[in-house]
């Protein structure tokens, strides 16, 4: 994305954010992976055998038996226990974010117990938050050092940016806010905007407002969560709903924005189209970085997505229930259209258990599309949108020079961990120990820091200018209308005519 840093003269490759982001992300994954591997249990073979045996037991359960559901749940719990022993997560309790809270914001700094009956523990939470801050500080200080900037100035300012991210998480953790999908990115952005548009961005704080570094490192780490075998989670119906409709909506909305609405900024058009058609915040962040959108364009797209998600999360479940389209079609429709995973699961829950499962699975498959979208948009941008100074399209060698390298890191990590995940139970648990044990939490913090930085470097006037014509809102509404129509038609076609038995199977589980 455009930033003051990117306008500086030529820097050697190792001082560019793209390469630093890749090195940091690969380094973190290597360290955490090695640590988990060293700590893996001695009785791995025994645990793997027990896991296989329990899975066989589940398969052999008599579906007609009265105790089927109870026995299956018991065995599934055993599977979860075995998996938690295999997947070692040495940093899981140390890398945290503030807890959710109802009435007292101080509860955000109390560790919630997994068991509902057990009292929450205040000890350790603040310590863990400090550890999280220190890990991020060390990681990014090294990046800033390599970039040739003052590490001391960065570290001093980083404490303030981290504190703002902490406040953003605390605001987002309030139960009402959380239940209407008003995610931390919104509060991080607003806090930054509040400072930059009232007292102004102080010089000392600007040293840690490093949007590009945070966002690109977060994105490369996100690659660890884009696991291609998840594509097959719902068989062909899942692929048809998520991977056929979504690209059609993305391209259709972008073309509508270009040729009908004539939106002046192609990058704004692309970010809104991807944000609305793929999966909200994460798709917007990935696409914005891929097409070098302005910070304000990214935050506008995310703002639109969050506002419309709040409306859809309330309205869509009632349309499903009122129309009688059923849990499977309704779930697939919700999963294919509501932007973020949490909102999809929440809306699905209001329809029913099967709807929730189908909706969340369809959204998960759509999430995996991020990798292909980021790569495709990067390639399209450097090949067809960006022109040479003489107005000509760039040659292939120039396309390579301009291609955003972080995308390669993102795809590389995604392919590497997908291949490891494919190696049976041990591979799956190894990936889980890296992602669930550390990188997921770090990636969220990096995005939060990035949005604080975007707010700090943005001006309200830019948003007013972009919204003045009303075109971004029209683009989102029209694109979402196309998405709602096509997703419904595909879900109906798939579960009524192409694979009618699958709907029955899903309902009878």
């Amino acid at each position: 994305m455009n930033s003051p840093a990117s306008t500086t003269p030529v820097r050697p490759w190792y001082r560019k954010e793209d390469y630093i982001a890749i090195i940091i992300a690969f380094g973190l994954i290597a360290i955490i992976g090695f640590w988990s591997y060293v700590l893996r249990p001695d009785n791995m073979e025994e645990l793997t055998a027990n896991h296989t045996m329990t899975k066989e037991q589940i398969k052999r359960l008599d579906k007609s038996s009265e105790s089927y559901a109870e026995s299956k749940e018991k065995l599934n719990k055993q599977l979860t226990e075995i998996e938690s022993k295999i997947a070692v997560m040495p940093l899981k309790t140390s890398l945290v974010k503030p807890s959710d809270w109802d009435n007292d914001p101080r509860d955000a700094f109390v560790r919630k117990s997994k068991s509902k009956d057990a009292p929450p523990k205040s000890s350790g939470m603040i310590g863990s938050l400090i550890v999280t801050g220190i890990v991020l500080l060390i990681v990014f200080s090294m990046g800033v050092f390599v970039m040739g900037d003052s590490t001391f100035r960065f570290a001093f300012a980083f404490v303030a940016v981290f504190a703002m991210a902490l406040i953003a998480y605390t605001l987002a953790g309030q139960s009402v806010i959380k239940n209407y999908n008003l995610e931390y990115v919104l509060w991080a952005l607003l806090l930054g905007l509040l400072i930059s548009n009232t007292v102004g961005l102080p010089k000392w704080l600007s040293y840690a407002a490093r949007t590009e570094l945070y966002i690109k490192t977060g994105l490369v780490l996100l690659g660890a969560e884009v696991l291609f075998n998840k594509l097959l989670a719902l068989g062909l119906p899942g692929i048809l709903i998520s991977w056929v409709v979504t690209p059609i909506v993305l391209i259709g909305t972008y073309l509508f924005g270009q040729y009908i609405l004539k939106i002046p900024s192609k990058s704004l058009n692309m970010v809104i189209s991807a944000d609305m058609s793929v999966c909200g915040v994460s798709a917007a962040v990935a696409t914005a970085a891929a097409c070098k959108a302005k910070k304000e364009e990214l935050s506008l797209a995310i703002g639109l997505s969050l506002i419309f998600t709040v409306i859809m999360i309330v309205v869509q479940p009632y349309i499903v229930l009122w129309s009688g389209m059923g849990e499977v079609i309704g779930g697939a429709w919700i999963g294919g259209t509501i932007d973020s995973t949490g909102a999809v699961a929440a809306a699905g829950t209001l329809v029913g258990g099967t709807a929730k499962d189908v909706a969340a699975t369809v959204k998960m498959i759509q999430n995996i599309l991020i990798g292909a979208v980021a790569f495709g948009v990067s390639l399209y941008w450097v090949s067809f949108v960006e022109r040479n100074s003489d107005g000509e399209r760039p040659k292939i060698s120039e396309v390579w020079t301009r291609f955003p390298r972080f995308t390669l890191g993102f795809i590389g990590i995604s392919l590497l961990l997908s291949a490891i995940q494919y190696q049976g139970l041990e591979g799956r648990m190894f990936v889980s120990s890296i992602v669930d044990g550390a990188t997921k939490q770090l990636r969220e913090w990096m995005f939060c820091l990035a949005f604080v930085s975007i707010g700090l470097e943005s001006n309200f006037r830019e948003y007013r200018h972009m919204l003045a014509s009303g075109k971004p809102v029209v683009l989102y509404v029209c694109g979402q209308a196309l998405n709602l129509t096509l997703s419904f038609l595909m879900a109906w076609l798939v579960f009524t005519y192409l694979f009618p038995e699958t709907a029955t199977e899903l309902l009878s589980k």
Partner: protein
Amino acid sequence: MIAVVAIAACWGFVLPKLAQLQSVRDRIDRFEQAGINPSAVFYTDHPKMAEIERRIDSVVNSEQSSFWGQ
């Protein structure tokens, strides 16, 4: 200063009061019981995703032919 007071009033008083309204409470409790995190950004942020995957996987694996059109 006004913004700080507004944030403190909203998060310290208004939202906690809203959270106590029966309709809002019911909604929050329903999501909590179902293990839903409505503010999850990516699928990996959703706490019950592994359970959902396992349930769907058992259905798809037991009826491979239906889900792969064979």
